[in-house]
């Protein structure tokens, strides 16, 4: 019996040593095999950001309204383009993407007018949206831009869920574009039912105009300052990937020079105009008139039209002046 026991123990010891050796060598071999050059790959999600409404020939592609009562202009515009029920259903999460790019006040015209955002958020809430989210990834420090634009304070007035672009909220998304592959995107812009793009019309020295489609730069994190090298293609890529439910363009104040930052009040013209569109290209194309530009001459618009993202002209338009 004693001998038996000893043998068993020896066997266990031996087996233990053998397996330890296997683990050490096998594990070592595995770790060595890992030690080869491989570009790092971040976890990427695949999401669908086509939140557009289906086309309906009875409604216009674009409504432009000139009125000094911006709240009324928004309400009237929404009515003309199909009514809020066409865009927001009961229980929807609606995400609003204004332009809050710069540390400027509303009067300086570099950011979307908070009065418009308030009106739109109210309409969505009245239509039964379960949550209205607002976010942006500004160029300047986001804490300053949200305060100084006057947009951060909206959450005190209405039930608006303001989400700050903290590092943790970015997720790598495969944008599947011509120049845009995998880029960090702020979560609320794809974790939503409806997406409302609320740009402001401004001068920009590279694209000549920044309005709706360029506004999608503000959903990206990462080194987006490199996109300027292929700005037309990257704008078209973004507009192809992010298809908003509704575009509401702010041309109440237009920064017609020194854009997109501005600074001086003499750079700003008041036009008291709000545009609502379901066609991204049409919205940007129509906005060109505030900067005296010929839409057909702009690279990003041509590129977007050739990708069938919308129409530069011959879109169905209703103007109320």
């Amino acid at each position: 019996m004693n001998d038996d026991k000893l043998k068993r123990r020896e066997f266990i010891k031996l087996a233990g040593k053998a397996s330890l050796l296997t683990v050490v060598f096998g594990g070592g071999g595995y770790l060595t095999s890992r030690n080869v050059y491989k570009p790092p790959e971040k976890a990427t999600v695949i999401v669908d950001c086509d939140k557009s409404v289906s086309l309906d020939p009875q409604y216009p592609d674009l409504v432009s309204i000139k009125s000094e009562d911006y709240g009324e202009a928004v309400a009237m515009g929404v009515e003309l383009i199909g009514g809020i029920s066409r865009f927001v259903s009961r229980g929807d999460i609606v995400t609003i993407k204004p332009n809050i790019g710069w540390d400027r006040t509303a009067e300086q015209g570099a950011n979307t007018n908070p009065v418009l955002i308030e009106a739109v958020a109210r309409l969505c809430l009245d239509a039964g949206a379960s949550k209205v989210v607002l976010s942006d990834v500004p160029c300047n420090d986001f804490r300053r831009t949200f305060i100084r634009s006057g947009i951060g304070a909206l959450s005190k007035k209405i039930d608006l869920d303001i989400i700050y672009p903290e590092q943790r909220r970015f997720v790598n998304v495969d944008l599947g574009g011509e120049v845009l592959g995998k880029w960090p995107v702020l979560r609320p812009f794809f974790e939503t039912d409806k997406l409302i793009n609320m740009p402001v019309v401004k001068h920009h020295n590279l694209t000549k105009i920044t309005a709706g489609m360029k506004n999608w730069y503000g959903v990206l994190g990462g080194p987006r300052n490199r996109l300027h090298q292929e700005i037309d293609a990257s704008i078209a890529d973004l507009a192809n990937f992010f298809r908003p439910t509704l575009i509401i363009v702010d041309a109440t104040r237009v920064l017609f020079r020194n854009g997109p930052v501005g600074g001086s009040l003499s750079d700003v013209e008041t036009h008291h105009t709000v545009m609502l569109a379901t066609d991204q290209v049409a919205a940007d194309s129509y906005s060109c008139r505030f900067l005296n530009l010929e839409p057909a001459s702009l690279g990003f618009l041509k590129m977007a039209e050739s990708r069938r993202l919308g129409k530069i002209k011959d879109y169905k338009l209703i103007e109320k002046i």
Partner: protein
Amino acid sequence: MAEKHDPTLKIKRIRNIRRLSQLFFLLLFIFLLYLTEFSFTSFGKPGEINPPSQWLNLFFNIDPLTGVVTGISAWVLLSTLLLGLIVIAGTAFFGRFFCGWVCPLGTLNQAMSSFKSERKSRKGKRLIESNKYHRYQAWKYYILFGIIALAIVGSVQIGLFDPIMIAGRSIGMVIIPALNTAVNDLAMTLSDSSYSIFRFLGAAIFKISSGIVTYLKQPHFHGIFWLALIFLSILVANRIFTRFWCRGLCPLGAFLGILSRYSIFGLQKEPEKCNDCNLCLMHCQGGDDPHSDLPHRRAECHLCLNCKAACAENALFFRFQPYFKQYNPKPDLTTRRTILAGIAGLAAFPVIRSGDKFVNEVTFIRPPGALIEEDFLKQCIRCGQCMKICPTNALQPALLETGWEGIFSPLLMARIGYCEHYCTLCGEICPTGAILKLKSDEKFGQTGPPPVKIGTAFFDKGRCLPWAFGTTCIVCEEWCPTSPKAIWLEDTETVGREGNIINIRLPHVDIDKCTGCAACEYACPVSGKAAIYVTSAGETRDPDRSLILRKRK
């Protein structure tokens, strides 16, 4: 009944009040440092940023050395000195109560000294020996005299040694940012887990912490290693000698120690009751010889009351106007060494100023509104408040970039952050006026006076995408905050490798419009060294450094 009249019970109660006071001031100190951050100070009206409250500077203002030393060097009387006078007056009555009851670094040192040690030198006889007065305790006076001598000739170095500034930098720029990182990293790791319970936990931590416990934006600081090392060294020294830093090196302790000779409150001994048990020495914080056969060194006493509480024989009392013969009110200084310390301080000045940092060449960028370099160094106390409040994290503590004289003073590091055009927070929080409170008009100059310029931007044309490679870019022009923009574009043609013509827009800097804010350098897509960079050339704080000679009007 006998117990009820036991005076040690009463003193123990007072000692607990002292502990409470220490805890209160330490927590208040940390809380104020914690609030010194952009989003925590700026709950304003829409469209407005609130100026930071001067309460955030409470400890820097109440520290009498802030006012005294900058007063000596810059010959200005800061209103903050009024708060410092409270401590000065209190010390003149009670002695170094500040060290034992208020000072946050003192509290940390006391906590580090007092938990049980396994070292032989921290027990029994050797501890008693170590807690007797030692000659090294005089060092702090010589440090103070050296600093004051240096201040007289025009260089303020109090910030390197003052306990409030050290604790402020250590907690505000090391501990709090590190805690932020720790909480965020933990929550991030949990959120990335494949188990839903961990993901839920991670989300919960974010929900609770973000913007409430942790900052919305993680602060980063240059040279954090050195800040942490200094802090750690001071704390660890306590494990060898009780409150080594407070006893041996602290210039504020020295200053208060000198003042305390006039105090009317102190330790009185009844030597006939003493049985030489040495319990008082076992618990002494200041190393001030509470033991009854020696004269009490009032300049060293922190008024922690430990000796009285430890004395089983009732041989020690704290009272007003104790017998003069039982105490030694003067610090243990020799005239010769005092003079030597002064000479050392005076001699350090020409040595520092003979360094290369003073040959006309100031390469670093100071915050907007900073005084001309010589005056700036007379008033900057290295409290780090400007760096913590800066919304873009642009202001960083210098190591040797600004010379030996400017260690831990603020400079702008453009690749970390830029100077926000409409922001004047650093000048608004500066407790000593080393950075002036600029009106927003002075900062960006839309009307009235010309804008404050902190430097000028220059292109590195060998790195710039349009200049060097014929590639479209203009991000610098996009970011340029002035109106009209200081960066302008030239539409031109360039030739490619194959002789092909490329239409290109080349950026240029308009030297009259550029404020040196460094937004261009920050935003430049060329990684590593940016293709546009800002130097202090043309900064308006020094008229000798304007860049272009112009005709006088």
